[in-house]
């Protein structure tokens, strides 16, 4: 990021003061400062100046430790041994049909194209968002005008230069309702296409209707890959110009994707030569059965597995050729009910089912104890918005009393929709069935293939939905827990839970980044960890 900038957003010294007083964590400060346009290295320096000598009273030890780790990782990363160039990485991952990147509906849709098409910003493993195709950004004091400065000299694979015209084209696509992009929900109430303006060839100005802090993070939402202004609407045709270090060679739905090195990429590696280090990456689809991926990894046909399941983990953890790196994520199995359908309209019935969860028992069965316990908010300990809370206790007697109070006749028949491809989800429901029986719930499992679950996941009265990791809760909560300007729940609001204070019309507070614990009343679930698996 540019070090030339002389203007510092007025909120930065304020946040620094809050950090000094121990009112916000270091992690939170870093995030806010970088979002407001301070470069990441500078933010780390500012944080060091602002950190109180004694441990901040509000910061839990665990949270403090967690803030240190990414910083260490960030500085350690460039110092890794000598750079080795060449080779092909083979990744075991499903290859679904895709067309427009803005319509990606799951992370693996985007993964296969990340080497080819790029984002304006990038949120790192340390939760800090840095400019990528952008050189820098600036936010006005009221957070309503954002100036995005494009990096100069980036060439598309067809020789054109990346300009604000390309960025404008992408905003038009994202914000047009007919594109049907999930990005639209993130800008709902803040930005229409009239607010996007190309000031010159390298500057785009966003004029928002309301203050928004997470603009740079929103630009890294996984469908927000930047396409050339001549984009033909179908990503899989090999003819679209790209800015990434690799070019698309082959795309076969359900079979494979191959990308290979292209000349003239704008970024250099650690050794001073242009990236990429690898010659090619092959994404190989082995179906939706994880055992096939495990066998392929053991047999050396692939080098790594995307999104390994808990079964995969069990199968591979004792294999000496494989390192298992435990990594806490915000991926979650979310047991939720629709609050607009009887009997879940009554909060007492919802609470009764919550109290039927012996969370440790469920985690032990479903995930073999590998993960964190859910606390009835869709915010994970790895996200900066997280506030430590007690894990709700298992209380079938209390649940029974609540059901009686609500006037529900027991046993109350409940059908939980589960995708059988997620064996841990099925086990979650099976365990819950046993645990909830004493309270007066008669749970049956409505089993279906995962694809059928995705067809109706937002419609079923009760279901267990896998939600993927997002570095920040603010990237997720507006997708699932708000209503649009008309008061209709947004498309991914599977619970239909809407709260005046939680919905950004009018905006609840300046930054929308503060989620008070205990306010997300309907979504909860089982926090689960993720694993990185790779062969040595």
């Amino acid at each position: 990021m540019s070090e030339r900038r002389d203007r510092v957003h007025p909120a930065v010294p304020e946040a620094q003061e809050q950090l000094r007083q121990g009112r916000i964590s270091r992690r939170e400060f870093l995030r806010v400062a970088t979002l407001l346009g301070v470069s990441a290295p500078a933010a780390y320096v500012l944080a060091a100046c602002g950190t109180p000598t004694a441990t901040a009273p509000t910061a839990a030890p665990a949270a403090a430790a967690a803030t240190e780790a990414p910083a260490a990782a960030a500085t350690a990363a460039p110092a890794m041994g000598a750079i080795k160039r060449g080779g092909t990485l083979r990744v075991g991952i499903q290859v679904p049909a895709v067309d427009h990147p803005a319509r990606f509906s799951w992370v693996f849709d985007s993964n296969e194209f990340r080497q080819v098409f790029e984002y304006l910003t990038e949120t790192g493993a340390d939760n800090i968002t840095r400019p990528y195709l952008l050189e820098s950004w600036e936010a006005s004091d009221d957070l309503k005008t954002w100036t995005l400065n494009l990096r100069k000299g980036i060439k598309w694979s067809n020789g054109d230069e990346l300009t604000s015209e390309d960025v404008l084209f992408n905003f038009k696509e994202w914000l047009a309702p007919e594109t049907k992009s999930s990005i639209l929900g993130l800008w709902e109430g803040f930005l229409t296409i009239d607010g996007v303006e190309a000031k010159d060839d390298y500057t785009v100005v966003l004029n928002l209707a309301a203050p928004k802090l997470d603009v740079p993070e929103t630009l890294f939402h996984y469908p927000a890959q930047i396409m050339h202004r001549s984009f033909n609407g179908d990503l899989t045709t090999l003819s679209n110009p790209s800015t990434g270090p690799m070019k698309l060679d082959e795309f076969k739905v359900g079979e494979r994707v191959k990308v290979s090195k292209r000349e003239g990429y704008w970024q250099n590696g650690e050794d001073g030569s242009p990236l990429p280090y690898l010659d090619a990456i092959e994404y190989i689809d082995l179906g939706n059965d994880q055992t096939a991926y495990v066998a392929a990894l053991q047999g050396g046909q692939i080098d790594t597995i995307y999104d390994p399941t808990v079964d995969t983990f069990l199968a591979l953890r004792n294999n000496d050729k494989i390192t298992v790196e435990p990594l806490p994520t915000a991926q979650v199995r979310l047991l939720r009910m629709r609050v607009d359908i009887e009997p879940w309209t009554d909060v007492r019935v919802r609470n009764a089912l919550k109290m039927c969860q012996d969370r440790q028992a469920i985690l032990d069965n479903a995930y073999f104890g590998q993960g964190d316990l859910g606390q009835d908010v869709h915010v994970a300990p790895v996200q900066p918005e997280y506030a430590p809370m007690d894990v709700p206790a298992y209380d079938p007697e209390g649940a029974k009393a609540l059901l009686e109070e609500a006037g529900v006749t027991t046993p109350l028949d409940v059908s939980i929709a589960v995708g059988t491809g997620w064996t841990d989800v099925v086990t979650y429901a099976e365990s819950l069935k046993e645990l909830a029986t004493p309270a007066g719930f008669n749970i049956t499992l409505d089993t279906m293939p995962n694809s059928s679950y995705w067809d109706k996941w937002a419609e079923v009265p009760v279901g267990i939905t896998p939600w993927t990791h997002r570095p920040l809760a603010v990237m997720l909560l507006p997708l699932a827990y708000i209503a649009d300007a008309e008061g209709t729940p947004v498309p991914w609001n599977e619970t239909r839970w809407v709260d005046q204070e939680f919905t950004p019309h009018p905006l609840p507070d300046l930054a929308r980044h503060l989620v008070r614990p205990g306010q997300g009343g309907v979504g909860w679930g089982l926090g689960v960890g993720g694993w990185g698996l790779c062969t040595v």
Partner: protein
Amino acid sequence: MAVIEQPATLTAPARPSVWGRIAAVLALLGRSRVAIAGLILVGFWVVLAIFADDCIIRPACWVGGGSDGTVVSTPWLARYSPFEQFRGRNLEGPSADHWLGTDRNGRDLWARIVQGSRIILVLAPISVLIALAIGGTLGLIAGYFGGQIDELLMRVLDALMAFPQILLYLIIIAALGPSAVNVVLAITIAGAPGIARLVRSLTLDIKTRDYVAAAQTRGESPWYIMFVEILPNARGPIIIDAMLRVGYAVFAIGTLGFLGLGLPPPSPDWGSIVNTGRKFIQAGHPWDALWASLSIASLVVGLNLLADGLSEELGRYR
């Protein structure tokens, strides 16, 4: 009337009592070693299924199903409830506590296998019986009346048979949703055409016999002739075919369970035990998949041996 084609041992001129006839069938089976082996295998599972828990003396748990918590049965041969989850004992191998080990939820595998035999031993014969009733009736009608009725019925059934059976199961279950009733329905629909074809060919043969002509001359109704004159005389092949079909039905129920289209979890369906268990073979826990596969295999082999022995003995008197 119906004694012309049958050996004297099977139908005595004076109608024997029910027990007498059962004894006759058992005596017939007793002469075949193959049939005895089959009988032992099938009998093993039947005894386990009946005495898995105390449901046999408590009719309430048949009504409640015993799995929704309203009626709790006391396990006998099963030793534990198939739904009880033992904390911290997930994925264990065989031990004195858990004879066959535990599954990923810490449930006793022996209890699940034993209770699973009840499901399969109820569903498989029921679905074959219904298929027999439907397919048999259609076959009799087509064979006896012939002509256009025959053409119409058999072409429709041929069309059904043209689909691979597994595809029919998948279509039916996917459309109706997984449940015990729908599994029975799927197996019935897929099995009836084959039975109809067999019964039709037997009918075509038998309706040329003199006793059928005699009944027609007496002015008996077609239905009387079909069900009283023809059907009993075709029973030998039909019984053997049905026996084999029960074996296929066991297999089909196992397959549906394996594909996630059988009885919904946590029901101890053998097929779904294999399916969930197979993911842990790579993790060094083959027990779920092994025991459930062995169970399916032994029951199917038992039923086939029984059918083989029976046809062997019946064939001896042809």
